[in-house]
């Protein structure tokens, strides 16, 4: 068990920077997910922690020890790969015990640890099989078993669920969470799937273009994103963004989207936004789940909208309504019973208590 610390970590491939300075402290037993679009440097960061990638600058510490120049085998880590990377010529048992056998651990100790890991992962019956006789989900369990058996200080997961089909992915996600509850080990998990990140993590690290955009609990990222990137990346469907201006109006503030469409900023937000009044290039952000059917609620700061529906997507438990507002296409999540027909008009209401204002130039949320 150990904490992991990254200090000003950078990585260049030739002259192309992949990771541009990452500072991160991962506590002992914590489950941290690095999430971001492809090419954001999340996998490279993980591989630097593993020792599979040279470090261009900065430091990686496991426990209190700088491991920059330590080979992977001495770092006492275990890694689960996207394509499982099971040894095809070895049985499940041999796959799981390979590392221990290399370390010349006693036979009965190996047997005990393999049995224990197999029980945790529910793969006891598969121990004699070869990888090619296993399904994708079973292979991923074996890959996890190989990691657990070694009782490492840190688990590293590199997009472990990306090769599985959607249904299995959800199952394995829960499985990974269960395993983490049983085997409390510091875990760094890389994924491009924000849902995986939100559901698994104690803390999520959102990365973009080699930098950290925001670090926080799933709830923090969802409710209080600090950048436009995080606001748009977390949540599905993505947050609606509309260009707008902020004006002083009769003791309060008004967000003006266009000539005819504007609304009053909720009173508790006025103090926060006051300094930005008069700025022209701002972006108004609101999640689809905060635009609902009109009759559902009539609380304070709810702004009614009457919109022309472009397309609807019935999902069963809810319906996504896509509509135009001043040339921008927006999405609302509404109750399926009351959903408006495509091409028709719908009466919706925007819950401004959850609004965000973003500075378009810096990309910061105000």
């Amino acid at each position, binding site marked *: 068990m150990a904490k992991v610390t990254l200090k000003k970590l950078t990585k260049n491939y030739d002259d192309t920077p992949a990771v541009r300075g990452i500072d991160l402290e991962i506590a002992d037993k914590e489950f941290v997910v690095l999430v971001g679009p492809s090419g954001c440097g999340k996998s490279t960061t993980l591989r630097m922690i593993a020792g*599979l990638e040279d470090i261009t600058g900065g430091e990686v510490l496991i426990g209190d020890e700088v491991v920059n120049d330590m080979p992977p085998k001495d770092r006492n880590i275990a*890694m689960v*790969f996207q394509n499982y990377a099971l040894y095809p*010529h070895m049985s499940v048992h041999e796959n799981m015990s390979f590392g221990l056998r290399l370390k010349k651990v006693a036979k009965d100790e190996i047997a005990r640890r393999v049995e224990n890991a197999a029980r945790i992962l529910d793969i006891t019956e598969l121990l004699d099989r070869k990888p090619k*006789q296993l399904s994708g989900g079973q292979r991923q369990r074996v890959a996890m078993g190989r990691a657990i058996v070694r009782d490492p200080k840190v688990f590293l997961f590199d997009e472990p669920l990306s090769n599985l089909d959607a249904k299995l992915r959800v199952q394995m996600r829960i499985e990974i969470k269960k395993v983490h509850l049983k085997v409390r080990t510091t875990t760094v998990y890389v994924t491009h799937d924000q849902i995986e990140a939100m559901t698994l993590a104690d803390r999520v690290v959102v990365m973009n273009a080699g930098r950290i955009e925001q670090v926080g609990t799933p709830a923090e990222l969802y409710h209080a994103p600090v950048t436009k990137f995080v606001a748009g990346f977390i949540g599905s469907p993505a947050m609606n963004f509309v260009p707008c201006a902020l004006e002083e109006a009769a003791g309060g503030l008004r967000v003006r989207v266009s000539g005819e469409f504007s609304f009053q900023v909720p009173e508790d937000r006025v103090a926060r936004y006051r300094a930005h009044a008069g700025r022209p290039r701002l972006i108004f952000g609101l999640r689809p789940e905060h635009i609902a059917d009109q009759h559902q609620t009539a609380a304070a700061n709810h702004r009614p909208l009457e919109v022309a529906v472009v397309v609807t997507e019935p999902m069963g438990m809810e319906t996504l309504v896509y509509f135009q507002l001043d040339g921008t296409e927006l999405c609302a999540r509404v109750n399926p019973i009351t959903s408006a027909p495509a091409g028709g008009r719908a009466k919706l209401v925007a819950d401004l208590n959850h609004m965000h204002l973003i500075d378009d130039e810096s990309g910061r949320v105000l």
Partner: protein
Amino acid sequence: MAAARSSMKGDRRKAMLWSYVFLCIFVVFTLTPPVYMLITSLKTNAEISAAVAPWWIFAPTLAHYVELLTSPVYLTFFRNSVLVSMLVVAITMAVSIPAAFALSRMKFWGSATLATGVFLTYLIPETLLFIPLFQTFVWVTEATGIELINRWWVLVILYPTLTVPFATWIMIGYFSSIPKELDEAALIDGASYLQILTRIFIPVALPGIIAATIFAFTVSWAQFLYPLAFTTSTDQLVLPVGIITTLIKGDVFTWGQIMAGALLGAAPPLIIYAFLMDYYIAGLTAGATKG
């Protein structure tokens, strides 16, 4: 619908028919010489020289085989061939497996150029090489006093110049098809590079290694030009050259013995093929990754 299906069936039958036609032509084409050799080797000398019915044996005899297998000269050729081929296979594998591992997995300065260079080496015709090699040997003898010409074991040094480049090239292909994550997983599991090679790469790439082994064995077993050029004494000859030089006496061709000797000489590669084919065909990488 029914018509379409029956015409599809008809198409398939037609395709099958043609495949069999061409397969039969192929079989006749490739099997005629060995069958003719077998028939001739079972005839008496009188029957061969009478040349009445080339495809029929009136008085079958094993005399030629018995003669050869009791002749110390023929057995010496056989022993030389076996020794040379086995040593060449061993040397080829000992050199090309580590070389291919390094070239496919370790990026070092000039590794890509070297990999291409290895292949280009193989493209140089061997007939161009034996004169410079001969000169080199003469030079070595003059400089050190070690006699290299007319020694069977010199072939063990010579053949790898033909087998190593190609075997390395085959192995690079096989090793490169092994997913990178496999060595990374082994690296994290605590394996050294040597352990990755011996415990992961060699077992996983076994079909490739067997292909290379078969290749190296066949090349050294069937090599004719080099032993003809570099060895002359009867006790130093290998089979292909030995049969030609000792069984043809002046202008007398002892056809029965030549055919029997050639057939016996062709047996070891056949046996090795048959034995290794099962391993060769199995797709061992299945299941390593998503696939």
